[in-house]
């Protein structure tokens, strides 16, 4: 029983990590329908900002996280103006090509600036170690990830579904021309949404360093995971990717624990199954 609960906890925490590193892509690809394969590059930027702030300037981890969000959002804002904006109406293939090019550029720049090695991250004492509850070992950082992920999902859903800005985003995505005619400043809305998506990528990257590591190949190494969550979750809402990430996390951890010989494939088996059953994703666009 204890081991079952332990596996469930680890799985949910791992799923939440998947959600956190992918939620930015749910915004740019899911909501804005822009194939932003460079999502991982923004995540990597957030990771490096976090690590550099902590190492060189002794900034505490919890302060470095918002800084990672801001830095990636700012980079997203600038790139949106000079580059991305021109590709909104282009074909998905064009978007894939330009963003994968960005990934390679980001890798080269990161290697040049920081070298090819892994970057160390020292968590504050309060976030490391573990608690034991009812015989189950709860890793403190994983608890932290669960809380942050839940808060983030709740806030984003609220913003998207209950605020005027959220309505503007959904309207702009559904029909930009009509939205514009109704007084929605589509350009601005897109710009802000894109920046938020990139900021979330940066935040996810910074939160992920502890588990995923950080080196210049980060954007390519984990691209499959980002896409997996968004593809299985479906576009158009943030609930889909959240459920998808949690489901995949639990399946992956349980697979590795109970069937270590084949465990690594279970993640992909689940993906294939879910996409056969629900090709539009768990929560499809209305």
């Amino acid at each position, binding site marked *: 029983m204890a*081991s079952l609960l332990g596996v469930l906890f680890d799985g949910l925490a791992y799923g939440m990590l998947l959600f956190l590193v992918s939620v930015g892509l749910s915004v740019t690809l899911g909501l804005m329908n822009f194939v932003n394969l460079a999502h991982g590059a923004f995540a990597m930027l957030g990771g490096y900002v976090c690590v550099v702030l902590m190492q060189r300037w002794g900034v505490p981890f919890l302060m470095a996280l918002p800084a990672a969000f801001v830095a990636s959002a700012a980079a997203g804002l600038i790139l949106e103006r000079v580059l991305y904006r021109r590709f909104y109406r282009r074909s998905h293939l064009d978007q894939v090509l330009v963003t994968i090019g960005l990934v390679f550029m980001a890798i080269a720049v990161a290697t040049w600036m920081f*070298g090819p090695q892994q970057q*160390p991250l*020292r968590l504050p004492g309060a976030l490391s170690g573990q608690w034991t509850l009812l015989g189950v070992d709860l890793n403190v950082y994983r608890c932290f990830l669960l809380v942050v992920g839940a808060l983030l999902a709740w806030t984003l859903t609220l913003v998207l579904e209950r605020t005027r800005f959220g309505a503007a985003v959904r309207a702009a995505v559904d029909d930009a021309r009509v939205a514009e005619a109704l007084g929605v400043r589509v350009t601005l809305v897109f710009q802000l949404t894109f920046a938020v998506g990139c900021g979330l990528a940066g935040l996810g990257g910074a939160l992920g360093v502890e588990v995923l590591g950080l080196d210049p190949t980060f954007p390519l190494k984990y691209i499959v995971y980002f896409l997996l969550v968004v593809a299985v979750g479906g576009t158009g809402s943030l609930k889909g990717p959240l459920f998808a990430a949690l489901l995949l996390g639990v399946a992956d951890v349980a697979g*590795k*624990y109970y069937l270590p010989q084949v465990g*690594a494939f279970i993640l992909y088996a689940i993906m294939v199954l879910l996409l056969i059953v629900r090709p539009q994703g768990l929560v499809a666009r209305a």
Partner: protein
Amino acid sequence: MTGGHGNAGVEEESVHVGKTVGRAEDVVKVGMIAEMSGPFAETGRQMVNGAKAYQKVYGDSAGGRKVELIVRDSTGPAPEVAKRLAQELLVNDKVDFLAGFGLTPNALAVAPLATEMKKPMIVMNAATSVITLKSPYIARVSFTLAQVAAPLGTWAAKNGIRKVYTLVADYGPGIDAETAFKKAFIAGGGEIVGEVRTPLRNVEFAPYLQRIKDARPEAVFIFLPVGEQPVAFMKGFSERELDKAGIRLIATGDVTEDGQLEAMGETPLGVVTTHHYSAAHDSAQNRTFLKAFAEVAGSDFKPNFMAVGAWDGMAAIYEAIRRNGNGPIDGDRALATLKGLKLDSPRGPIMIDPETRDVVQTVYVRRVQKRGGRVFNVEFEQFPSVKDPGK
């Protein structure tokens, strides 16, 4: 990673030591194929700097002839790229030696070319046992995983460890390490209570760690390739308090590799590993090596066993040139020199086995300890003259 088109910058980096020399036969060319970009770029940088450090100390000529190092980027585990680069080096640059090779697939792809062209091929790192069997012109100066994993099995059994759980990365070197460790450990009276092979792209060790913890072994033996995986495993190991549950961690030296040891923080303290080189090895030759490496690569870049492999590879090549006499480098003659060659390496004495052309060396048992505020692999026991048990 960049499909072989991104290596222009690296080619610029070639060390054109022989520029001022007039007659072609006065220059000996060494074509070095290394991973200079992509996820294994660290390997390539270690090797190239190790080779340059050797040239800095012993000069850029051997036996009165200039030694020119030509570096080519294999971009990662890319056998087809390595093969093409080797062809270019042999045909266009007319190199006399092939050298480098951080990864097994690249070395295997080039082996038939070495045989065909009768050119000595010095493997400076790639560590699966099978490589030297693929061409009579291959000599290896690095190590094999079986060579360092087997002594650990013997050591563990001798030191009161009875039950071990093994965890290795699921690819050639991982399986080599697992097989050699198990064989030696069981022969010493130990028992394997569980084993698992993890995927190469694994990021989440939590379920494996939990499984190991539940199995309650006395120690867990691991091999994971240098990179984020050993770091992730170590973090998880201490976070899940496997150490407090009385489980010891033993590993091959790749896991606590010198270059990244400091990035791991306090976690690896006390971990016992076996390997052929530690930056903390106490010898005049090692001090010379460390000093030269810092001068070539800067003091921020910490050398590891890969840099030593390249240093020793250059030492072997220099000796082969010296004993070649005048006239073009003769591949068969070079191999005759290399077979049985003894070198004073920064890691200690090494020899190239005349039978297998594989390295014979001391394997050290080390413990991760703090020394003067820095973390090192401190050697405390040794197995002298270990041959590769994988053959």
